């Protein structure tokens, strides 16, 4: 299969294509949307509190009279940003750890992977909560804390990949030509791992966004008046009997985004890693 065929194959599945389009639409509207709206996310319309959709407020208003559409879009910016940054943190840790373990071989590898095994059994939520409680509820801490616990699968996958690659001829050839450890790592192994890493990074994003929403729901994540989808969902759950629109809109945006992210991840996996895909 050459490059072009593979690319055409990438979005051959109908749901994958749909997921990609939805994700593009979500990202675009979250980035651009708030600039086009008349109301800011924190502007209050005190005459219209907890109202349903209207011509002025397309998704209605929340209990404080703030425009829900603006809040959902701005909240989406934060949720997506946390998802991206936390995934980046997790990927950097996971790739570095996996590469070192895969290259180091026997003793070190065994110890490092035992550590991963043990960490898998850790009650992570308690640690994220502790980290956030300990170091304050600052934005940059939330994604560092989430990233610090979500790198395990990435480390395992990268390690397996490195173990396959390191015995291949081109690596041996590079070694014979006198390339040092670092050079082999950075110039020869990293480019070959990139595809797998991208796939698993994209599959990490939904879980990370879920964690952020959970934290915000427990009151430990994004603090008011800023909103993420988790905050909006938790406010909406409180208000549900009075005004179901908030839970519906924030929840729908969240579910739709997670679904499309999953589809894009699947599509990427089929492209980079056809044997792993079902």
């Amino acid at each position, binding site marked *: 299969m050459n490059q072009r065929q593979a690319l055409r194959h990438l979005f051959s599945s109908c749901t994958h294509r749909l997921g990609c389009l939805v994700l593009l639409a979500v990202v675009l509207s979250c980035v651009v949307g708030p600039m086009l709206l008349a109301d800011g996310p924190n502007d209050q319309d005190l005459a219209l509190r907890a109202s349903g959709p209207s011509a002025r407020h397309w998704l209605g208003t929340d209990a404080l009279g703030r425009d829900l559409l603006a809040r959902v879009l701005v909240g989406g910016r934060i949720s997506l940003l946390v998802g991206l940054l936390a995934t980046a943190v997790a990927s950097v840790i996971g790739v570095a750890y996996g590469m070192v373990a895969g290259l180091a071989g026997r003793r070190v590898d065994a110890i490092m992977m035992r550590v991963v095994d043990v960490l898998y059994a850790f009650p992570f939520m308690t640690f994220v909560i502790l980290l956030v409680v300990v170091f304050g509820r600052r934005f940059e801490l939330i994604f560092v804390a989430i990233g610090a616990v979500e790198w395990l699968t990435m480390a395992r996958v990268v390690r397996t990949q490195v173990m396959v690659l390191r015995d291949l001829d081109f690596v041996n050839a590079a070694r014979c030509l006198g390339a040092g450890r670092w050079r082999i790592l950075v110039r020869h192994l990293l480019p070959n791992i990139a595809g797998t890493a991208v796939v698993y990074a994209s599959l990490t994003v939904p879980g990370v966004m879920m964690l952020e929403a959970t934290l915000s729901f427990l009151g430990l994540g994004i603090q008011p008046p800023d909103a993420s989808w988790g905050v909006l969902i938790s406010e909406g759950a409180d208000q549900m009997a009075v005004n179901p629109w908030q839970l519906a809109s924030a929840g729908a945006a*969240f579910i739709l985004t997670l679904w499309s992210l999953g589809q894009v991840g699947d599509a990427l996996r089929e492209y980079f890693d056809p044997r792993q895909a079902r």
Partner: protein
Amino acid sequence: MLALILSRLWQGAFVVVGVLLLTFCLLRLAPGGPFDGERQVPEHIRRAQVAAYGLDRSLPEQALRYVWQFLSFDFPPSLRLPGRSVGEVIAASAPVSALIGVAGLGIALAIGLPLGVAAALAAQRALDRWVMALSALLLCTPTLVLGPLLGQWFGLKLRWLNALGWEDPLDWVLPALTLGLIHSASIARLSRAGLREVLSQDFIRTARAKGLGERAVVWRHAMRLAILPTLNVLGPSAAALLTGSMVVETVFSVPGLGQHFVGAAINRNYELAMATAGFYAVLIVLFNLGVDGLCAWLDPRIGRRQP
């Protein structure tokens, strides 16, 4: 088999002690102490208070003391809830969390497994597509959305169950249903994939050629192996179940461990936070042990391969 269980228990002990020590370090890194928020008291009373809880000793000494207390089930009086010992708090709330978690897992298996099997047998037909689409949707639905929706529907609209609280004997149903529905999605997908893989193997063809009925082939021969991927994921998902139970306990105002943990961490209630984290670790370790044992029993090769 015995070696496997012993090695896992050994590993599990490390996990629990590790969790306790890490929790201790994190709590002690945090600024503030358990007596900060209270009204000013004379210096000698404060010192007596600190000494009474052993907070004046060196940090390693304190850490070891906490770990020892946890391992020997000898819990001190709680720092912030006067008159109630940490042991009492845990004894009151742990069964609640455990009930929700176990019932949720049971519901997840009861829904997920049959659907997954049915989907695998109906490969590529309408039923299969529906199961896959529905599970894809459920996989993206967070507990924080599904929980309030179920509460609204069954609690406030139909009035079958209480939407909040923990008084009625049936109050575990809604929290467990929320957790179970969400986890049933991944179970359905994994069991479908597992069964399809196994059904294409040679020994299944042999069983069919022998003249066995389809039911015997699927349930007695194929399922034994097909369920392994599902079981393997159940271990890590115990952690997810506990995470979910924190949210669900908040959504339905259930007095479980989750709320105590968050509260204890915020209030610097050191002993309670450590005991809760340790208890979560014990639950996860025991659960993983059970899953590993089950896997080894279903597929004897696994028990032999392990060191």
